[in-house]
């Protein structure tokens, strides 16, 4: 006596469009807002000498951009950097040691949309050279030892599934027991990873709980928000820093701009959900350009007795 799939509309038409669009913990922000110059070239494809800045449309000599830490020399727009590049930029050479690299993603829901999640994991791993969307470990920042996590927006939009959550929780616990300052640099447009369902949502609670213990122990947590930091990542560890820094003009927020637009049906104000918007509304301590990030982190650690 199983019922056929309902085709009836919702009983509350006034909320229908809202529900259809609602996706509070993750969102398709990668299709909106300023973007970095295209993804890194695929293997076997020769690297172009020139890049086009999606901030100002100018054509930039690749080498020059790289020397600028992937910041546009024309307009200062901060392009994508991978987690590995970020670590190179931030740590004293040769000091970074990865932790928990042996944790690997699995497919607890046997999830499949247009493509099975199990296959998606493998192809993302091949494409990015990462095992999942976060790297964690320890290293020296201007001779100060820190515990550090970096998420990479190129791996399933930097979304947090079980591996990201577990790596971060272990990182935070180790920072607690070893009394290390903690730095987490977020680049996660995807929020909590849908493909691991409720388990992804629970990583938000797990990591936040670890941060609560770390905070009670007196540890300093510096959260650095980069483009993009959205949904369940913004709504957990990324917002819990004792200090919250952001790179300029990053997209940062809870709900995706498309979701909001579909819900309230008005145009969003210019600069909505940018670093500057968050600073103006009181949620960010400092906006720091990438070239100054290392020295600013070191200085903050000095102030807070690290």
């Amino acid at each position: 006596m199983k019922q056929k799939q309902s085709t009836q509309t919702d009983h509350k038409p006034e909320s229908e469009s809202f529900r259809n669009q609602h996706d509070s913990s993750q969102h398709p922000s990668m299709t909106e807002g300023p973007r970095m110059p295209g993804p890194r070239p695929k293997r076997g494809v020769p690297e172009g000498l020139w890049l086009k800045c999606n901030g100002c449309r100018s054509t930039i000599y690749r080498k020059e951009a790289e020397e600028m830490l992937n910041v546009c020399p024309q307009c200062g727009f901060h392009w994508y950097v991978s987690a590995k590049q970020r670590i190179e930029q931030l740590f004293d050479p040769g000091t970074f040691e990865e932790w928990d690299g042996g944790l690997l993603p699995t497919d607890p829901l046997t999830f499949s949309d247009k493509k099975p999640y199990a296959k998606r994991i493998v192809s993302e791993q091949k494409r990015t050279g990462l095992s999942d969307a976060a790297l964690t470990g320890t290293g020296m920042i201007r001779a100060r030892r820190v515990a550090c996590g970096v998420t990479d927006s190129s791996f399933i939009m930097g979304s947090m599934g079980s591996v990201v959550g577990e790596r971060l929780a272990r990182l935070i616990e180790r920072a607690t027991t070893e009394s290390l300052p903690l730095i987490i640099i977020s680049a996660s447009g995807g929020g909590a990873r849908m493909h691991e369902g409720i388990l992804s949502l629970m990583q938000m609670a797990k990591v936040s709980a670890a941060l609560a213990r770390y905070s009670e122990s007196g540890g300093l947590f510096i959260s650095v928000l980069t483009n993009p930091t959205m949904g369940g990542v913004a709504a957990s560890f990324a917002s819990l820093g004792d200090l919250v820094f952001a790179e300029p003009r990053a997209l940062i927020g809870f709900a995706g701009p498309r979701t909001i637009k579909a819900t309230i049906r008005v145009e969003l104000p210019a600069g909505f959900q940018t670093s500057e918007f968050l600073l103006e509304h009181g949620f960010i301590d400092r906006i720091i350009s990438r070239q100054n990030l290392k020295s600013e982190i070191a200085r903050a650690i000095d102030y807070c007795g690290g």
Partner: protein
Amino acid sequence: MARGLHRLPLEKPIYELEDKIADLETAPLGQQAQEEVQQLRRECADLQKQIFGNLDPWQTVEVARHPNRPKTSDYLSLVFDEFVELHGDKAFGDDPAMLTGFAKIDRHKVLVVGHQKGKTLAEKQACHFGCAHPEGYRKAMGKMRLAAKYGLPVICLIDTPGAYPGIGAEERGQAQVIAESMFLMASLKVPIICVVIGEGGSGGALGIGVGDRVAVLEHAYYSVISPEGCAGILWKSAEFKADAARALRMRAWDLKEFGVIDKVIDEPRGGAHRDPRLMAARLKTFLERTLKDLVSLPIEKLVENRYDKFRRMGAFLED
């Protein structure tokens, strides 16, 4: 038996049978007709069991969103002996989508926090259909701190499609407050019991969902994202919401299997909306038993157990 105006398509055969019984009962019943009515009543009960025992994932979402489904305000009167509402976040405003206040249950004085969807259209609009703003989560946090100060256990009733997505919500720190609320609840020094009574929509649900015990009503759901939102992103159209609902494994027994919740509370035959009093009685029994267990534990142990509970969640491989 509650019979409101709203009937889901999946409930249609049940209502047809009930209408038939009602028709028979309008005339004085002879012996034979009485037996027929008895027989139809048994059939109707079987039909309800059969339909509600075999809901597919999308149908479960429909039941969880049923307009007649008992809401936080119903349980406040049916489960608790008293409710003393406390308003306001002491910073911006008073979000009606988040109800907070003192309550009594089984001689325990507690703090209740719950999403409120509203019943009339005006209430629904004021509550944004159960989608709280940052001031709602700030209100919840403020009252939870108060509860911790005076040793009142916290009971959270979760029923939201998600935290509100809007300009003001972003301006006032929607991401920030959800993060802070989980952070606070993770180490709050009083027992916390959370129950998903309808919709467990994403971060908006988890924002009041970190507790010592988490239960879900049989036909409620709890998900990382709404099925429509997931379908829109991964299938590129909300029309695939039923596929998304299936893929997300968001139903009570799935959640139990993943170790995310402690208990599934059975609903009355035909769903909670068919018998809110019975549903409330079962919820009350669960809350009373759980409170009894939790208050007997030393608070340090309780908080440690709460940490371990969430710390274990996740699925990964390890070399």
